[in-house]
Structures are given as structure tokens and as C-alpha cells.
């Protein structure tokens, strides 16, 4: 019986796997293994891969039920990435907030430009779960990670002339596509009176839910002032300036009769176009009624004394 064994010369060159593909196969195997490991890592990510999983708890945190990460990151007013509420989530993905630097100037001793890592290094990060009330009439409960604004401002040794502190958002049309349309007078500027800024509540936030701040929420660093309407809590800050005179702020300039410099949450002073008595808590079923808005968004005990004797209808 003849055993058919082909001689090497019978094997056509076209049947031999080219070396490049042969090597590709190894590469493919390596990639597959790597990809499946990554998937496995992803599945356990929330447990250990967060940036600051054990940020200290704060006595200022509310114990209200927090909004989900999906809610907090899918519904944002961040006109630098578009005016629709879903626009920031859609358009901020490509934004790279690192490297980042922050300039401190004006009425203070330690002026300068600092890179983000050096800027935040001196402070202990903590988790602050705060209510956020938007001027549009909706609200959320958000677990920020950050540090005290007052502690940070003191580092730069403001002089006695520092009566206000002004914050500026990055202005870069190529990175923030919403700035290509002049819906607001870019760059976005917000400010606080120095005693407001020195109150223990305001936070410089660098994170959310124990992890770094998503782009659509104001990466890499933003302000959070929980007793004021959300637009005062300026995002993606590149400049901090101490001033003697009250700075011009973006929404106030855009519509002075509608958005005051103070913009403290106040159910008794309506927006000229709509009531501020109630708010819709995001995440509640749509068939449930709105909830009452609280004076100073529920932080009256900590901040009411800042405005004693002021006519809140005039200084809205």
C-alpha cells in the first residue's frame, strides 16, 4: 500500500502562511489576552481603581440620596461644550484636561502660575455631598471630591485690598467647541465676595464619586458653592484673581435683570421669567410633584449671616 507523503517540493509556496501573518497571529493572541484581561479589570474597577476611593468624609455632607453618576454626567449646563443639556456629555469626550495650569494674580502676595498637581498637592481631599440647585429649577445631590476654597485662597496670602475673588474658565475654541458660537461673552467669569469665599462651605472640586472629575462636569478643577445657583460654580478654572472692585461676571453681564452677582438660592425671589419656589429633583419619577426649594439651598445656618441687613430682592 502506498503511503502518500508529499515531498517538500509538492507544497506550493501559496499554501505556506507568510511570515508576517504568522507573526500577526501571535500579536493577535497577545492582544486578545490583553483585551480580555482589561475587560476583567473593568468589571472590578469600581472597587479599587478609583482615584480617591477613601477621601475623608465631611461634616458638611448631606445624607440625602445622591444622584447616580449617569445622571450627574448626562445632564449638564456647560455652554463651552454646547447649549443643550446632553451636549457636554457628547462633546467633551475629546477634551484633554491635562497638563493644566492655574494662574493666581491680583491682590495677593504669592502670585504665580502653577501646574495642577502642584496646585492641589497641599490640601487634604475630602468628599462633600452637596445639593446643587440650578437656576432653571432642577436639582441634584452630588458627592464631590475636593478641598476647601478658603484653605486654598489663604495659601496665596490675599492682601487687605482683596475684597473679591474672580475665577476664569479656559478660553480655547479648538478644545471647547461651544465657544465657537458667541452665546455668552467668553471666557466665562464668576466671582465671590471674599467673605463668601472664606466660608468653610465652598469647595474646589477635582473629583466626583471618588474618581477624577469627568470632562462634562468641569475637569480638571471647578468651584462648588452649594448655596448659590449652579452657574456660580464655575468649571475648568485657569485663573484666580483677587480684586478690590466687584468683578464683572458672565451671566450677570448677559442678562443683568435675571442673574444677579449674588445669585443665592432663594425661594422668595423669583427669576423674572419663572418661579423659584420649587425644584425638580433629578431622578425622581416624572409623575411625582416637585419639592420645595430651601432658603440658601438648605445652607442657611452656615451662610445666612453673610447677608445680614441686605435687601435680598435688590441683591439677588
Amino acid at each position, binding site marked *: 500500500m502506498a503511503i502518500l507523503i508529499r515531498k517538500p517540493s509538492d507544497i506550493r509556496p501559496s499554501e505556506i502562511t507568510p511570515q508576517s501573518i504568522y507573526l500577526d497571529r501571535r500579536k493577535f493572541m497577545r492582544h486578545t489576552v490583553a483585551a480580555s484581561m482589561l475587560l476583567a479589570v473593568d468589571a472590578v474597577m469600581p472597587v479599587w481603581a478609583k482615584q480617591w476611593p477613601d477621601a475623608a468624609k465631611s461634616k458638611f455632607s448631606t445624607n440625602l440620596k445622591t444622584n447616580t453618576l*449617569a*445622571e450627574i454626567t*448626562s*445632564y449638564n449646563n456647560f*455652554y463651552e461644550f454646547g*447649549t443643550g*443639556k*446632553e451636549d457636554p456629555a457628547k462633546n467633551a469626550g475629546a477634551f484633554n484636561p491635562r497638563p493644566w495650569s492655574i494662574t493666581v494674580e491680583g491682590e495677593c502676595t504669592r502670585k504665580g502660575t502653577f501646574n495642577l498637581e502642584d496646585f492641589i498637592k497641599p490640601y487634604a481631599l475630602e468628599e462633600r455631598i452637596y445639593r446643587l440647585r440650578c437656576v*432653571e429649577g*432642577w436639582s441634584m445631590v452630588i458627592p464631590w471630591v475636593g478641598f476647601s476654597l478658603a484653605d486654598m485662597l489663604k495659601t496665596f496670602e490675599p492682601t487687605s485690598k482683596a475684597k473679591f475673588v474672580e475665577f476664569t474658565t479656559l478660553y480655547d475654541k479648538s478644545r471647547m467647541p461651544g465657544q465657537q*458660537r458667541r*452665546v*455668552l461673552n467668553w471666557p466665562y467669569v464668576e466671582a465671590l465676595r471674599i467673605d463668601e469665599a472664606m466660608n468653610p462651605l465652598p469647595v474646589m472640586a477635582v473629583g466626583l464619586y471618588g474618581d477624577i472629575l469627568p470632562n462634562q462636569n468641569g475637569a480638571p478643577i471647578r468651584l462648588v458653592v452649594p448655596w448659590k445657583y449652579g452657574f456660580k460654580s464655575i468649571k475648568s478654572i485657569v485663573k484666580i484673581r483677587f480684586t478690590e472692585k466687584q468683578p464683572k461676571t458672565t451671566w450677570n453681564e*448677559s*442678562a443683568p435683570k435675571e442673574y444677579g452677582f449674588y445669585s443665592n438660592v432663594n425661594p422668595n425671589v423669583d427669576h423674572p*421669567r*419663572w*418661579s423659584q*419656589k420649587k425644584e*425638580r429633583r*433629578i431622578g425622581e419619577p*416624572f*409623575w411625582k*410633584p*416637585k419639592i420645595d426649594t430651601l432658603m440658601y439651598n438648605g445652607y442657611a445656618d452656615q451662610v445666612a449671616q453673610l447677608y445680614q441687613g441686605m435687601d435680598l430682592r435688590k441683591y439677588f
Partner: protein
Amino acid sequence: MSFALSDKAIQWYIKPVLFSVCLLPFVFIVVQAFAGSLGTNPVEAMTHRTGDWALRFLLITLSITPLRRIINLPWLIKIRRMLGLYAFFYAFMHFITYIWFDQYFDWMEILIDIPKRPFITVGFAAFLLLIPLAVTSTNKMMRRLKKNWTKLHKLIYLIAALGVLHFLWVVKADTFEPLVYAIILLVLFSYRAYSRRKSLA
């Protein structure tokens, strides 16, 4: 040459299809509301979408007359009533969303809100003015009102203008979308003014 359609074709095919298509936005809103896929703020989505469709149907209704002349489709007049009634339907749903999900039947607050907030005042006025048009949309009412019917239904121009103003006054800073509606309305107005002058000359 015009593309003619028999009354039968309009009655049995065009109208039922059109009716279903126009109802689709509403069906989607309801289905998504219960599926939880209306976005992070469902009440806002419902409000915006019913309002958008009310405005769109108003403009579509207004464009029927110019369209049937320009592209020579006289039978289009036979579907205008349905489109107008859909404008009323979506305006009504917009109003219901406000009363129910936004204000949760807080009648005191609603009664204060309507005269106090200019954008709500004009929106509410537009809705109220749509009611007589919807009521008198039947053949019977058309015959009964004779010439007055046409006069009465000219109100739709005012209603559309109030609707656009309502939208323009509610936005915070970005006026792009309401301005698009305003421009379309202006084009429709100008066409009407132009063809009227021509017919008078």
C-alpha cells in the same frame, strides 16, 4: 402638470397614513416616558417635545397653501384640517404637561404664573386661541360660518407668532432654535402678503 389624486385615494390611503405618522411623536414620548428613556429630566423632555411639535404642526399647516400653489398639488388642501388639529393636539399635550407634571395641579400657582410670566402668558393665549379654530374645524361649522370662517381662521398667523414668541422668551441665552422658527414664519408671512398684493393688482 399636476399630480392628481382621487378623493377615494385621499380618504382611504393618504389620510390614515398621515394620521398615524403625525401621531408617532406622541407615541414615542409616551413609550419612552414609561421605558425611562426620555433622558435625565423626563418632564423637561416631554415639555420641550410636545411644544416643538405644536410649533412644527402650526408651521406645516401654514405652509399648505403656498405649497399647493408652488408645486401645484391642489389636493393638499384636503389634509390641512388634520394638520391643524394636530397642532392643537400637541399644544394641548404641552399644556397638560405643564398643568400635570410641571405644576402638579397647583392651581393657585398656575393662576399666578399665567399672567405673571410673559412667556407663559403668550403661550397660554396661543393655546386659548387655538380652541375656537379646533371647534369650528368641521364641515358643518364651515358652512355655518361662511365668510366668517376664513376670517376666524386667519387667527392661525397670530397663534403661530405667539408660539414663536413663547419659545423665544423661554430660552436663556441660545436663541438659535426659536429664531429658525421665526424665520420660517416670516417667509410664510411674506409669501402670503406678496400673493395678496398680486391678486389685488
